[in-house]
């Protein structure tokens, strides 16, 4: 039986009629048209579906949309505003922390969660927290460098 869900995404509240067996990822993409969050494996093993829920990095493919009721969801679309890139996004562009771009929204959202929690992270900490975001293109070096760049931390990977 379908249920009405009031979902707060990127600051806007949406009312959607859904089957309870819809994941947050499915609702974001198929009901709200927010295609930025990607489906890499649908089983929580790659991080491509990462969104922020109340500021924390969550795997939206293994979360029921119903369980997101009353919580603040932020997707990649909600990161930049006023036509400007968010500083994290700008770092990724400048440093070249992306190639095909498919894992990028998930990685950028995880980077946001990392930097909100730890504004001046060490390289080790970034690697550990980013390790749940798989990437087959970059070898991760420029990804980590981009996060360090966004944090204003000098150094980066050797």
């Amino acid at each position, binding site marked *: 039986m379908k249920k009405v869900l009031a979902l707060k995404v990127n600051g806007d509240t949406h009312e959607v009629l859904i089957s309870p067996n819809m994941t947050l990822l499915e609702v974001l993409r198929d009901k709200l048209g927010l295609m930025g969050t990607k489906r890499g494996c649908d089983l*929580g093993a790659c991080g491509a579906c990462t969104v922020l829920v109340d500021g924390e990095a969550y795997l939206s493919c293994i979360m029921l949309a119903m369980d997101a009721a009353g919580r603040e969801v932020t997707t990649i679309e909600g990161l930049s505003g006023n036509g400007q890139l968010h500083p994290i996004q700008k770092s990724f562009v400048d440093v070249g922390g992306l190639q095909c771009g498919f894992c990028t929204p998930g990685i950028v959202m995880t980077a946001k969660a990392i930097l909100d929690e730890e504004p001046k992270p060490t390289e080790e900490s970034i690697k550990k927290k980013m390790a749940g975001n798989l990437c087959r293109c970059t070898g991760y070096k420029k990804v980590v460098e981009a996060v360090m760049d966004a944090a204003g931390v000098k150094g980066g990977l050797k």
Partner: protein
Amino acid sequence: MRLPKFDYRSPNSIQEASAILLEEPSARVLAGGTDLLVNMKHKVETPAVIVSLAAVPDRNYVKKADGAVRIGALTPLKRVYTDSFVAQKLPALAIAASSVGSYHHQTMGTLGGNLCQQTRCKFFNQSKWWRNSRPICFKAGGEMCHVAKKEHVCYSTYCGDVAPALLVLKAEVVLTGKAGVRQVPLESIYSGEGKTPLTLQQGELLTEIVIPEQAADGFSTYRKFANRGSIDFPIVGAAFWTSKKTGESRIGFTAVDRKPLRALQLEDFMKGKQLGSEVIEAVDGLVAKEARLMLSSIDSLSQKRQLMGQLVKKAIGEAMGGR
């Protein structure tokens, strides 16, 4: 992969949740979702009713009370290991919790959920169309165990990281249900049987984890072997607790049997002995018999057996002051 259809309930209290579980025998509890929802997408678990605990308040805490550390079952793993007391005084728990899956699994996954996770098997944790190549396995509702090649048995493996750490810390858990509230040693919630790994009664929920204060009076650690530094379940996980004062050592394993277990023979051998070469040399011989290793994963039994010994020896070495 779509989730199968189910009726969704979101109770506002444990009591309400318990009542639903009693009404609906095929209902399952949903905490972080990192375990159950994956199995549901694979259609190996298809509960008709999901009891989401998202709206149940007051079960997310780490506090010291009555000489024990009490952790709410719905406390995310990240909160557990970033708690300063846990990090400093109960390192086995902190290390284990921070080694579960990836960072995201640690923010979503709960301590209680991690303890109650489903057992795993290379024939079970696969999609429906993959499993069509064989008759449905016993654990998934059929007759045959493809690991043992026997009917009506299940040789799946318990692979949670946190359980062995809590076992060596002598944790107890609070189970809340219709009949009331009971507090039992953690090991008693594990049946040791693959198809129904937990002994919780119908209507019962695990609501709190209680760690006695003596757990902090010793050295503890958790050593996980996996191929990668994130995402992976352990190939073998070993927890170790030791007290110079009492001469007692406790060893816990995961991913070696149908439940997490204590290496009781090894513990017996070590009682009263100083940590040193005599103990270390005996480890391999003693751990080999502690678990019923089965080929339920793509990792070989000989590797698991070797790792059981290696991880314990490394932990002992750490306790002795080396790394």
